[in-house]
């Protein structure tokens, strides 16, 4: 499988979850693990460009696919991805535990709705839980991210062919 553009060998144990594979085998600890049953959204990553729960996939299932984690959105030292930049500007986080999952979900949301309505924003982040912010600043961040994303992003459409 390719993770953030780098090819990695398949995991040995079929029961290894993709979330655990990313964190423990590849050291990509930016993907957080909250509930491990698909409710909290912390572990959201992109699979061939679409957001999915990495705790609800076996790592072996990602063989032959492209996985993008929060680490893959912007290289070290490079400018932040528009969604990261928006969360930074609008204080779309407090403790930060849920943030990688929110950012990956919002990347997917803006791929689907580049100019989302408030309802589409609520729908798009409804699968991610945040215990700190009360969501108001996260909603603002999503709208800001849509503005910033009007500038073409190199990530858009990655893995689609």
């Amino acid at each position, binding site marked *: 499988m390719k993770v953030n553009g780098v090819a990695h060998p398949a995991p040995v144990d079929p029961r290894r979850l993709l979330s655990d594979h990313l964190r423990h085998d590849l050291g990509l600890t930016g993907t957080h693990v909250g509930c*491990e049953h698909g409710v909290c959204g912390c572990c959201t990553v992109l699979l061939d460009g679409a957001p*999915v*729960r990495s705790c*609800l996939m076996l790592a072996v299932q990602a063989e032959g696919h492209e996985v993008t984690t929060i680490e893959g959105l912007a290289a070290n030292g490079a400018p932040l991805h528009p969604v990261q930049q928006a969360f930074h500007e609008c204080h779309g986080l407090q403790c930060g535990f849920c943030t990688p999952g929110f950012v990956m979900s919002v990347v997917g949301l803006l791929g689907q709705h580049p100019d989302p309505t408030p309802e589409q924003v609520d729908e798009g982040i*409804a699968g991610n839980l945040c215990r700190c912010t009360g969501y108001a600043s996260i909603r603002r961040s999503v709208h800001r991210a849509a503005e910033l994303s009007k500038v073409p992003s190199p990530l858009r459409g990655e893995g689609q062919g």
Partner: protein
Amino acid sequence: MKPPPFEYHAPATVDEACALLASLEDAKVLAGGQSLVPLLNFRLARPAHIVDINRITALDRIYERDGGVAIQALARQAAVEDSEPVARVCPLLTAAVRLVAHRVIRNRGTLCGSLAHADPASELPAVVLVLGGHVIARSSRGERLIEAGQLFQGVMETALAPDELLVEAWFPSSPQPFAVIEESRRHGDFALAGVVRAAGRLALFGVAPTPVLADPRDPLQGLQPSGDLEATAEFRLHLVRVLTEKAFAA
């Protein structure tokens, strides 16, 4: 919160998958995994074998046939949600699939998986039931058609035999007017109770071991929902009454 050990199989064709299901003891089919993997993580399911059908190519088609839409086993719920043929032929299904969990879950979850899983609080089994659709089950013994009315047997129990793979679901075109309404504690949660209306027909979900057809004039008849921490039986009956009124006022 890690899956128990199992032997993993990734067949490349439907025939291979059926051969595996015929020969293996205690095998479970893995499609989208959005229900099965949580069950594994909680260790509520401990199958000896997992048959992952995601490597089977050309099993993700959504196409029109016999005046309705057919949805193959690997078509993701998000693809059903975005499908032009589904929106045109069976807009009730488009409306219902939007109520299934969240988009990120629907990116992975499959419609056929929802039917095979047969959660009593799930929307899609009630939709195929109210429309009088069917599923196609394939095994190394052959292929058979199972009417929606025969498919759902109990809580997470279907008429599928252990060696059968649900390869396709078929939904007739939805009549006007239609409605699908549910009440849940939080957006995207399983419904406490829900109703699906297709013209004069009504199906209920979340209030019996399987989705059930009901008389729109007396939807509570014979209904004995269970109570739990989320809702009492009385509250579920109240919801059925109110949601049915709403569905038929539309």
